């Protein structure tokens, strides 16, 4: 049984460090909720209580609708694709093929780069007429595409960047999981006559489930949290086609200086994350019964 925490010690161990955490996590979340009920102040008139007016604006905001659609597509596409690719990479790097160190370097390198640097690299890669994408297209006799300047390609281009940056990190987690799978399990399956495809789907993949859960949660949070590449590469454009929710918050608040609406959008984002967390918790609890 643990000792009771003395008051003085408790103050140093818990209250001091946690007050910092509260000041920049719980306090701003609650303050966003409060501020979303007020309008913006200006030099000649203080802010005024407006009730749910900001939330009504939320419902009538066409740009927001587009941004939410973009964010949903972005999350639904990048998370599974990054996971699938990272499992493939981990299998390749873990195999006894020649040149695995080169593969590991190539796959993991993007993870080491800041997202801003990644954005610069891809900005150059996509640059119409100059970039490697255009040069490759023209080598095949195809016209160059302005990937970032077209409404139908800009979001996909952003997804490619995100997947390129993240898959290598997830690969590392899968590599760890693969190496901890006992060889005798696979051997047993092979003795029973299972081919390597069956071994993968019936033995390896189920054992990777805890890693997949961990990676999926992280990937989903990152899909919301990381918008550096949007800021550097497209600024949400053209015509909002590549704007994600956090980017929209950034633009509304620090571009248009609309702090009241920014607070309202923050509340929306916290609610969405809360729902996602509750949903994941529910799914994981249900799945746990099968084990």
């Amino acid at each position: 049984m643990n000792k009771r925490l003395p008051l003085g010690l408790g103050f140093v161990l818990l209250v001091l460090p946690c007050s910092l955490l509260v000041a920049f996590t719980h306090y701003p979340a609650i303050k966003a909720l409060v501020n979303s009920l007020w309008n913006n102040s200006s030099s000649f008139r203080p802010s005024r209580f407006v009730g749910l007016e900001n939330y009504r604006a939320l419902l009538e905001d066409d740009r927001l609708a587009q941004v939410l659609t973009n964010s949903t597509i972005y999350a639904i596409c990048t998370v599974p694709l990054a996971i699938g690719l990272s499992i493939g990479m981990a299998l390749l790097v873990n195999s006894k093929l020649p040149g695995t160190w080169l593969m590991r370097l190539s796959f993991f390198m993007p993870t080491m780069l800041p997202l801003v640097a990644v954005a610069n690299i891809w900005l150059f890669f996509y640059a119409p007429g100059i970039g490697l994408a255009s040069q490759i297209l023209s080598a095949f006799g195809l016209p160059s595409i302005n990937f970032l300047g077209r409404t139908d390609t800009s979001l996909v281009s952003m997804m490619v960047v995100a997947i390129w940056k993240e898959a290598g990190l997830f690969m590392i987690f899968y590599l760890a999981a693969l190496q901890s799978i006992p060889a005798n399990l696979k051997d047993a399956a092979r003795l029973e006559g299972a081919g390597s495809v069956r071994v993968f789907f019936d033995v390896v993949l189920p054992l990777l489930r805890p890693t997949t859960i961990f990676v999926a949660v992280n990937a989903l949070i990152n899909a919301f949290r990381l918008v550096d590449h949007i800021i550097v590469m497209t600024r949400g454009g053209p015509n909002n086609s590549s704007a994600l929710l956090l980017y929209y918050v950034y633009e509304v608040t620090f571009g248009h200086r609309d702090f009241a609406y920014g607070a309202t959008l923050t509340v929306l984002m916290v609610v969405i994350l809360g729902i996602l967390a509750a949903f994941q918790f529910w799914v994981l609890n249900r799945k746990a019964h099968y084990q």
Partner: protein
Amino acid sequence: MTRDLNRILIGTLALVLAGLWGLPFAYSVWTAFHPEIYAANFKWNAPITFGNFVEAWNSAPFALYFVNTLILITIVLVANFVLCTLVAYAFVRYRFRWAGFLFGLVMVQLLISPEILIVENYRTLSQIGLTDTIIGIALPYLTSAFGIFLLRQTFLTVPKSLDEAAQIEGAGAWRVLWTVYVPLARPIYLAYGLVMISFHWNNFLWPLIITNSPEVRPVTVGLSVFATVESGIEWSLVNAATLMTTAPLIIAFIIFQRQFVANFMRAGIK
């Protein structure tokens, strides 16, 4: 026979994938080392030059940016090591009312990270007058739920008998922490430190919002300002600057590849 064929097939596929994956970065590196006129048309025998690096280095205060990032990382690293250790220690070694509930509250930060709360955190910092300072960049990151969680998990594995033995020898709470718990968690500190260094070397959105002047800018913000404004979109310069600002991490990675990977895995899985 078919097995060998399979191996060759998969091996080729793997190399093609690795090659494609490395292509954008490799091309960026290639451009950085060649004169601007070759940026648009690849020639394998184009002359190599270091001029882009010299020019980029001279046209923006990158040395200052590096120093700022180093100061930022040092502050965040020291604060996290100290503060997360204290909180984790309290949760592992003591009982108190609402411990479970409080731990849940702390873990909320895993979901709602400081990036989500930029609007209100910016207001807080402008109220206390810390915008455009390095401390201001660091403040929301001084404690982290991830660090507390990681250290709590590690401290839980410390055998109770060691703790009790230290107490019998007359060690108080601080001595026990310093002589029993911290040494046993050393690998975790290393792992967490590496993850933090890479996170804050890469962090962009919050520093972008909170800083205004070059004197406090970290490298990521400096790089983005350089790439959009100061370089006049000369691709070889942008690529040289990009490479320059990320080189320390890349070199560190290549040297410590094994330890890095092992530590990233440890930080993630435990």
